[in-house]
């Protein structure tokens, strides 16, 4: 099968590559692509030397602010981002975890006040490499990457 039949190239926009396949939908939600009118291509379970299997997202004519992109680190810490102009890669960026995560993640501790009162969740990022660790501002529990649930 020809490569271009699997995923079409875009003339201008953003390509997010090296997303774990099971996180593609989560990344799309984090970037609010479900509310976006632009042409969007999502791929899952594609062959990758780096990850074995990977997912990717291409969005036409859409560019993201660094703080939006950094949210991806919660579910796809190894993701890479390319800005495309006239079918060429104009710039490559790596995803970097922010120092704080506000209002994005649910605390997995059932006894945490954030699961009982109306308030915005707030986590401090206590480790970024190799995996992300978050500490809840309220219950102070440290949660691992695989426990992260997006609200």
């Amino acid at each position: 099968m020809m490569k271009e039949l699997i995923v079409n190239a875009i003339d201008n926009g953003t390509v997010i590559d090296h997303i774990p396949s099971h996180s593609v939908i989560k990344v799309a939600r984090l970037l609010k692509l479900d509310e976006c009118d632009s042409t969007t291509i999502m791929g899952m379970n594609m062959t990758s030397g780096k990850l074995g299997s990977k997912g990717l997202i291409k969005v036409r004519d859409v560019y993201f602010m660094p703080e939006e992109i950094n949210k991806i680190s919660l579910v796809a810490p190894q993701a890479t981002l390319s800005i495309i102009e006239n079918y060429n890669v104009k710039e490559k960026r790596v995803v970097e975890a922010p120092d704080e995560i506000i209002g994005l993640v649910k605390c997995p501790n059932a006894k945490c006040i954030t699961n009982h009162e109306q308030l915005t969740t707030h986590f401090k990022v206590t480790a970024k490499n190799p995996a992300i660790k978050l500490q809840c501002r309220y219950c102070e529990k440290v949660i691992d990457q695989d426990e992260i649930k997006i609200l």
Partner: protein
Amino acid sequence: MNSLKQKSLVSINDFTKQQQLMILDMAQEFEKNPRRQILSSYVIASLFFEPSTRTRLSFESAISMLGGRIIGFSEAGSSSVSKGESLRDTIKTVNNYSDLIIMRHPLDGSARFASEVSTVPIVNAGDGANQHPTQTLLDMYTIRQTQGTLDNIKIGFVGDLKYGRTVHSLTMALTNFNAEFYFVSPRFLAIPQQYKDELDKSGLRYAEKSNINEIVEEVDILYMTRIQRERFSDPAEYEKVKNSYELQKNDLHSAKANMKVLHPLPRVNEINIDVDETEKAYYFEQALNGVYVRQAIISMILGVI
């Protein structure tokens, strides 16, 4: 200068090492003279959303000795919570009636949340399994009182180290004082990885053991905690291991001269009453120290000293 004025005490990490030592120094002054009318113009709210005997009475005793007035409730059933009121609304109401709020609540993180919505300082008297900072400060006070210093002590924690918030908070506080740690517990109630990570990060030494007798002769402080039998899925399993976590007078023969046994209380079976008659037992003095430490905390936060 009193840097604690109008500051909430939610987590032991909210206060620097210097601020913690300032509280202990002030508590020492209250130990010499615990009855002074310095809070006579203050109203302090004591909101206990879950029952507590020691902590609540210790706070109320501390405030009463200083002439302060106490309003509040000792269980959620006698508050508007039973009518479905949110914690936010309870706090935003009570902060109109008081100069400081002491609060115990069954949910983790409730005290931090309360401190964000309250216009008066919050003192956390226990939020679920998370923090109990006034207990930590009274434990630190007792260690310094019995050992003459907080630096370089060897401390053994025994019992339920997974859910025991006093163990977690005291471990974190002692990372500032170059302590050495022994953790004795059944494997499924072991100290959580997050605390071992912190000790590793601070470069401090610790060891995990399965029997009290392996550490008695090593430690300066033996900090006992209760193991709830209900945590064991099979009661017979508890019977098999209980001697490893229950302290008897006979276990203390090899202890160092300066060694003291502490316990946040209430105890059930983990310290046999025959230990009470030994000079190693110090848990009731520890409970008394709670009054002085809480007097220091409240007075410093209200800025009356």
